[in-house]
């Protein structure tokens, strides 16, 4: 019997994993405040947000490393959940191959399957040459890749990856993404946390968190389409109240005008189409302004 099935606060969903209205308290308040979220098989779902947004807490819930104080977490059993914790979960004093062998045995993978997958994933991740090196001696990017393939090894229904690409060079990042999309193509529901919003654009579904609360959720297109008001690009920061709704991006200024707001006086500017990063920034800004007004 799976561990999850016997656990209160979780239930088995049919191919669809996630959380409903979950809250997690810690000493300083709420780490997660009634967050809902879903992950579908064969898709990559991204959880985005800055430091302290609650991404890791949500992923730990999904992986089964933490239980919610309230709400329901839907996850498969431990045998069907692959997890890359924020600190990679790799033993630095074991070799690459030994790490994978331990993971395979821990998940009860048949030896032949384990051998086959290990060889294939090492090859795909570009780690075949490093199989006998101690994991502690690998570069940051290589160690992350090892963490990802270790989490993929059991062929889990739910693959939970906490910031798999943070601190990884661009070449390794694309290698990692190749692995991640492959896991999704093989039928896993992949949930990953990232602080890079451009990465989240590749995901089928995005949850943006801020201070433990949901900021925006949906497909990247839905989130972008849902941006209220107008976004303009300006050469310099507008003066006055509009300045509080402006932020710098790629050497220029973005100014957001809520629905019904008067266009800012100042240098001529042009209306632009927001992207996911703009949409998340605007959502955070709107919440901040609403909080200030209240």
């Amino acid at each position: 019997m799976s561990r999850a099935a016997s656990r209160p606060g979780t239930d088995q969903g049919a191919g669809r994993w996630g959380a409903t209205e979950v809250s997690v308290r810690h000493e300083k308040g709420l780490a997660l405040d009634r967050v809902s979220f879903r992950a579908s098989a064969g898709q990559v779902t991204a959880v985005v947000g800055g430091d302290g947004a609650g991404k890791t807490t949500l992923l730990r819930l999904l992986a089964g490393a933490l239980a919610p104080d309230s709400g329901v977490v839907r996850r498969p059993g431990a045998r069907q959940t692959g997890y890359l914790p924020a600190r990679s979960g790799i033993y630095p004093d074991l070799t690459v191959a030994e790490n994978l062998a331990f993971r395979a045995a821990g998940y009860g993978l048949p030896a032949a399957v384990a051998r086959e997958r290990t060889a294939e994933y090492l090859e795909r991740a570009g780690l075949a040459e490093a199989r006998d090196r101690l994991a502690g001696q690998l570069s940051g990017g290589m160690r992350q890749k090892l963490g990802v393939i270790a989490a993929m090894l059991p062929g889990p229904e739910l693959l939970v990856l906490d910031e798999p690409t943070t601190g990884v060079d661009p070449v390794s990042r694309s290698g990692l993404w190749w692995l991640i999309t492959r896991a999704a193509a093989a039928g896993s529901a992949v949930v990953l946390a990232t602080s890079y919003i451009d990465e989240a654009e590749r995901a089928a579904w995005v949850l943006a968190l801020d201070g433990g609360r949901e900021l925006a959720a949906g497909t990247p297109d839905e989130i972008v389409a849902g941006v209220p008001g107008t976004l303009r690009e300006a050469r310099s920061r507008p003066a006055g109240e509009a300045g509080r709704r402006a932020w710098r991006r790629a050497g220029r200024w973005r100014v957001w005008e809520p629905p019904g707001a008067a266009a800012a006086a100042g240098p001529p500017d042009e209306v632009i189409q927001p992207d996911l990063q703009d949409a998340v920034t605007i959502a955070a800004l709107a919440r901040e302004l609403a909080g200030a007004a209240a």
Partner: protein
Amino acid sequence: MWAMIVKEFRQVRRDRRTLAMMIVLPILLLVVLGYAASFDVPTITVAAAGPQASSVSGLLRAPFSVVSQEPDQGRDWAQNQLRDGRANVAVVTGGSRPEVLIDGSQLFAARATLAALAKLENTVSPAGTTATAAVASPEVTVLYNPDLNTSDIMIPGLAGVVLVFIGTIITSLGVVRERQSGTLEQLAVMPLRPRDVFLGKIVPYFAVAAVDLAIVLAVGIAVFGVPFRGSPAVFGLGALLFLFVTLGIGVLISSVSQNQGQAIQLAVMTMLPQVLLSGLIFPLSSIAIGVRWIAYLLPLTYFNEISKGVMLRAEPLGPLWLPFTCLAVLGAVVVTAATLRFRRFLAPSRVRSA
């Protein structure tokens, strides 16, 4: 330099455990050692056998204290009293000369007995009265350790110290390492039961400790000529129980430590009293009662009794029931506590929602 001093003090202040250790440990050590550090044997227990058994207590003064008298019993009974640890000395009357049997495995009691007997003879002989007849030139036999070798009594105990070392320090490091490398969380979500993780953690150390024990014994026997007179099976059972307790303590320590430094500190704090108070160095009977109770909470105290009893006196399982039971109880308590603590990391979902 001032910046460095301030930084260091700030760090020390944050590390409460080190701070407590720096302040409390010296006081604790002084008090414990002050009461414990004594080789003087206040009482020497005597078992008397033979027709004149009842008159023996009249003849012996402090530190001797007759704990049993059996006029109908003979030398075999007397020797069994020593073997089973019921008395330090046995007096067998009824022959042409009384025979005094001394348990050489209780080194300090044996030495004190020899000294006291010599004094007794000196004070009694000049008077030349009838009392002398009973005491005069008793036949003294030191059993189990006739030459009163220190190594004979130290090595069975040292075997225990080696096991404490492996069991506590090495095991505590093994688990805390998982926490420091961030792999404990990975273990927590893997489809492993807490019991599997617990046993998987201690079995390798168990095996290493068993090999170490065999080496210590082999060296003790081959190099130091320590006898092994009793049953290896009884000894093995004792070692097994003792290891179980010690490894459990190791896991318990690591489950309450955040890093390897803390684990080592705690491990040393449990080892120190074991080495000092378990009867290995200072005889238990010499330790003041206010401190002696600590000894009865320490697994090494019981292992010491078992290993000395089995190796030197060929003590069988029966009379050793008390140390065996105490070890089993300690083991159950420690392993339960360690498993419960372990669960908090390994099945956090279950614990939080409970």
